[in-house]
Every structure is written in C-alpha cells, then in structure tokens.
C-alpha cells in the first residue's frame, strides 16, 4: 500500500536510518522517533497507518507504550524485540500488537509482515472463502476441503483453523487461539492447544511433520501461512 504512513519507534539511530531508507524505497512515508513519549506525541499529530515499535525504549516500558498506542489507534502495531524475550513479545501481542519481529531481522520479513498487517487493516478481508494451497475453507458452510475432498474436523478443530486462517500470515498467540476456541476463561492451557493443533495438522497438512500452513512460532503461538 504505497503512500501508507509508517511510524518507526527505535532508540538506535542507525536502525532508524536503515528502516527509513528501506521503507521509503518501498514507497512508504516514514516518520521516525526515538522515544516512547515522542511516539505518543507523533500519533496525536497525525495518525500513522502502521507502527513499528521497539520494545526496549530508554524512557518508558515498551509494553506500556504499546498499550497506550493501542488505546489511541486502530492501526496495526508490529513490535521489534531482541532474542530471548518471548514473554515480552507474547505480552505485547496480547496487549494489542499485531505481529512481531526478532532482531536481527531481515528486510524481507519486515516488509512481508508490514504488508500483511496493512492489508488486513484495510479490510481486504478474506470473505467467506479462504484458499491456501490445496486447502479451502468455506466459512458460510463450515466446510473444509483439501484438493476437493472434504476434511472432517471436530468443532474445536474447525474453530482453530478458522481463527488461524482469518489471521493468515500474522502471528496468533497461544492465549488468543485458546480463547477463540475454548472461551475467555482459557488462556494457560497450552497442552489442550498443542494436542489440538497436532490433530489439525494431521488432517490438513500434506506432511504433518513439515507443516506448510500451520507454522509454529516458538514460545509465542502459531502463524497460518498463505502460500504465495
């Protein structure tokens, strides 16, 4: 979505420079700030279409900034964090962030996630039929087919697949998936989830031990990949 305005928040000037260059080369309009407070101020001045937020900020707790941004914005927020901070990533996602990137990240990944986030925000919703490779989900008829043959899923398996597909190409935390399938009182019962996803993979993946649709995001959740 060229011309889309991206707010980049990171306290490292070299990273800001590089991100600005890369994003502008893709046709985005970039505003770059170095602190949490500056980010909140920038959002007041003009609403960005997307935010890239580093969670390690000098003046504020990244999660707090994320939460406040989410309170004021509908736009997608992609958080940037360092290795080994899965808990923080998950917390950010549960607080309203849409996706994450782990430093050091490649630009291909960055651009892909940004693209997906913007597409989803623009409401180019998937409509009642979602296609991924040889898999088709008909949400109106609650029907799942693979290569034309119907796949029989239990109600919970279907709910899980539906939620994942509706958030295609974006990360879905364990908690989010659990809640969508089992209800709001659930958030910690990862054992249910992993077994369920395993069952699901066995039914929909061409090679369950090398999943192509339902990918594991270690320590965070899952991501449904739409093959290009």
């Amino acid at each position: 979505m060229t011309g889309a305005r991206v707010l980049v928040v990171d306290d490292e000037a070299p990273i800001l420079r590089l991100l600005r260059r890369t994003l502008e080369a893709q046709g985005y309009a970039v505003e770059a700030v170095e602190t949490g407070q500056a980010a909140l101020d920038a959002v007041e001045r003009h609403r960005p279409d997307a935010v890239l937020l580093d969670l390690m900020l000098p003046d504020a707790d990244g999660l707090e900034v994320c939460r406040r941004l989410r309170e004021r914005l509908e736009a997608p927020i992609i958080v940037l964090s360092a290795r080994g901070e899965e808990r923080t990533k998950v917390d950010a996602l549960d607080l309203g962030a849409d996706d994450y990137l782990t430093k050091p990240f490649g630009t291909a990944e960055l651009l892909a996630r940004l693209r997906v986030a913007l597409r989803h925000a623009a409401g180019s919703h998937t409509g009642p039929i979602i296609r991924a490779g040889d898999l088709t989900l008909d949400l109106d008829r609650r029907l799942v087919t693979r290569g034309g043959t119907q796949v029989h899923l239990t109600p919970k398996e279907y709910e899980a697949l539906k939620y994942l597909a509706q958030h295609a190409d974006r990360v879905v935390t364990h908690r989010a998936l659990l809640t969508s399938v089992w209800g709001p009182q659930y958030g910690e019962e990862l054992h249910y989830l992993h077994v369920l996803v395993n069952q699901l993979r066995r039914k929909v993946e061409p090679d369950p031990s090398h999943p192509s649709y339902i990918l594991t995001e270690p320590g965070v959740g899952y991501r449904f990949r739409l093959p290009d």
Partner: protein
Amino acid sequence: MARRLSARLGYAATLGGVALVSLAMWLARPYLALAPIALIHLLAVFCAALLWGMGPAIAGSILAFVALDYLFVPPFFSLTIAAPSEVVSLAVFLAVAIVTSRLAAWARARAHEAEARAREAGALLRLSDASADAGSMPATLRAIAELATGVFGVRSCAILLPDSMDVLRVQAAAPAADACALTRDEEGIAAYVWREQTLVPHGPTLYVPLRIGTQRVGILRVGPRPDGQPLPASEHALLQTFGTAAAAAIDRRRLQDAATQAEVLRRSDALKTALLGSVSHDLRTPLATLKTGITALLQADLAWDRQAQQEMLAAANEEVDRLTRLIGNLLDLSRIEAGELRPDRQWYEMGELIADSVRRASARLRDHRVTVEIPDGDLLVYLDYVQIQQVLANLLDNAAKYSPAGGEIRVTGAVEADAFVIRVRDQGPGIPASEADRIFSKFYRINGRHTGTGLGLAICRGLVEAHGGRITVENPGRAGAVFAVSLPLTTPPALAGRLA
C-alpha cells in the same frame, strides 16, 4: 564434705572390720594356733590399707596389735609388750599397713592418670576425626562444639570467633539453639579472655582461649554440667589440651578453605583466558569476512556484476547469521553461569518440537540426510520450548559439522521409563570414551577439532539440567556419536473430552 564422710567411713569400717576379725578368732581359738590368728589380723589390715588408705590402715593395725596382745598372746587379758618379738610384731603390722596403703594409693593414682590420658587421647582423636569429616567451617565448628559437650559431659558449648570487624561472636553452639548473641557481660568476659589468653570462669560457665602457640584463634565457652555445677578444676588440663587441638582444627579448616578459594580463582582465570582467546578468534573470523566483502563491494573502481554482488551479499548475510548464533550462545552461557536461567515452562508436544527444530536447522543440514522418528500419538512434556529447541539446534549443528557430507543424521524421540529421550545420531568419528563427560564443559574441544567455540554442548547441558534432565553421549569410543537428551516426564493435566 563427701571426702570427710568417706574418710570417717574408712576408719569406722576398718576398726569395725578388725574388731570383727578378733571376735571371730576368739571364737575359733580352740582350733587355731597363734600364727594363723596373727596372719588373719594382718590380712584385715592389708585389706583396710587397700580400700581406705593409710590413715584407717594405721588405726586398724594398732587395734589389731592391741587385740592380738590382749586376747591371744599370754599373759591373756593383759596388754604387755614384754618380749622384743612383740615389738617386732607391732612394727610389722604398722609397716604392712603403711606400705600397702601407699602402694595402693600409688596404683590408684597411676590408674587414674592412665584413664585421664586415655580420655584425652580419645577426645583428641575424635576431634581430629570430626573436623576432618566436616566439609565446611560451620560444620567443623559445630562438630567441635558437639564433641566438647560429649567429652566434658556438659549441657552446652559454644565457639566464639572474631568476625570481620574483630568482634567476638558465637559462630557455633551445641545445642544449636544456644547460638545466640552475647550479652554485654559475656562480651566483656570474652574480650578479656581474648586479650589475656587465660581461662576464666563466669558463674557456672568457663571461657577457654583457643590458641596455637601464640596465635589466637577463638574462645570456647563451656557451660555447666547437667547438675548445674561448673566443670571441676581437675578437668581444666584436659580442657586446655582440647582447646589447643580445637584451635588447630579450626586453623586447618581455614587454610583448606583458602586453598580451595585460590584454586577456584585460578580455574576461573584460566577459563576467562580461554574465553577471550576462543571468542576473539570466533568473532573475528566472520567479521573479517564481512569487512572484506563489504569493502570490496564499496570499491568504486571494481565493477561487480549483479550476480557477483548478490553472491557476496549472500555470503555476508550468512556470516551475520553465524555471528548472531555465536553471540546468542555467549549470552546463553553467561545466563547459565549467573544462574539466571529460568525455563519458562509450558506443556508442549514433543513431535512438534522435534520436527520444528529440524525444520529450522534445515539450511545448515542441507548437505546431510536427516531422518526423524517420533512415536505416534501426542506426547506432552513440560518444558521451555525455545530453550529445548536451542539444545536440539546445537546438537544438529554439531552433527552436521562432524558428519561427512551426504551422511545420515537421525533424530529420534522415545518414552523410556519416566523420561522422554531425544537422540541425535550422526555418522561422524564419534566421541572418545575419555572425553565423553568433558565435552560438556565450556570451551572444551576434542583435540584436533577446532571449529566452533566449544560452547554449544556446555549450553546444552546448562539448559537441559535447568529442566531437571540429563544429556549424555551414549556410545563413547565408537564411530557415529549418539547424543541423548533425557527430559523428565510428568503427568500432564487431563485432556479427556476437551478436544472434540
């Protein structure tokens, strides 16, 4: 007072005993001649000397002489010392009485002394044993205090040592509940004893300086006996000896601790040197590649075609990935060392973890054939996904590094007793039996193999052990290394009916 009573008893018993003997002889006189009668009286005096010492024995011998002379020597019923033989008899009685009682006293004293010596030796032996067995200074002090209560039969003992500010404090006590702070008075006494290095009583308690030669070590505080009485003066000599031995034991423990500390520092320094050497080499290599590649591309006068540029940049990117892994390893290791590794555990399915790990390593495994064997069904293990994935990544890296290209790498998972065991098998040269445990130490590399920093396996062990698991080499000495990671299996919460 007890002694006076027993003294009086001695006299009474002797005189009574001799009188009884005389009476018995008087009744037996038709059947016995004078000689045996006299000798039996002598026997009585002899026994008195043995049992009650010189005083009663002399009294007894006088009574015996008088009885003999009065009752058995003519003229009867009169006390006459007429013939020289009677003087001799008296003299003999007295001599026997005196000599026997002195001999007996001497023997008793010797026996007493031997007993005291034996007790002392026993106490010192037990002290030396106890302090040798104790593994630390607090344990040593406790052992000494407990031993002292046993050896001296007292209710309590405490050891006071100067702290870092040279203030005497109770460092150990038996019973342990007595290890409380000193009162003002006690502090004063302790300070005095420390200064003057002399044994000082304070009510029923004794303060004994512990020193080796002129070197002051501490103070032993000895409480009263169960009857409330302080330790008698007769025990003071043993107390001093015990004190010296205790001081020596404490000093020895101090030296041992210092030696251990020095060794630990030495090893840590050696390790730090190894770290610097190894890390600087392993960091510089990819950096060098990056520098060369990037500067080459920057050079204006070199014309790179698009494909060459792409290749150089791709190579640079790989070096960045390698550096990322290396730095990640270093960070992991430092967290393991600092004990800051807290696995964030959840229930995960093993098949998924293993498959995912293999998939993520696929770029580095592209020159090998990888097979994965996992049991059917859903196996839930309580673990930190990212950490265990790191373990598998390191093991797969190693397998790829040391296996010949085209070789097979097998990853299997299986339930064995109460553990889930993941095995990574390669077709490389294997691990020599002598190195099977050492390879898990930091920076250890098998002779002749120099790639990698040698941190991977140390990290694996840190991460696995943080999960309460074990990592081992299963077939040391044989070709094709098999690394086994064993994670404890606990019962997952029930799933019944939740998945429909």
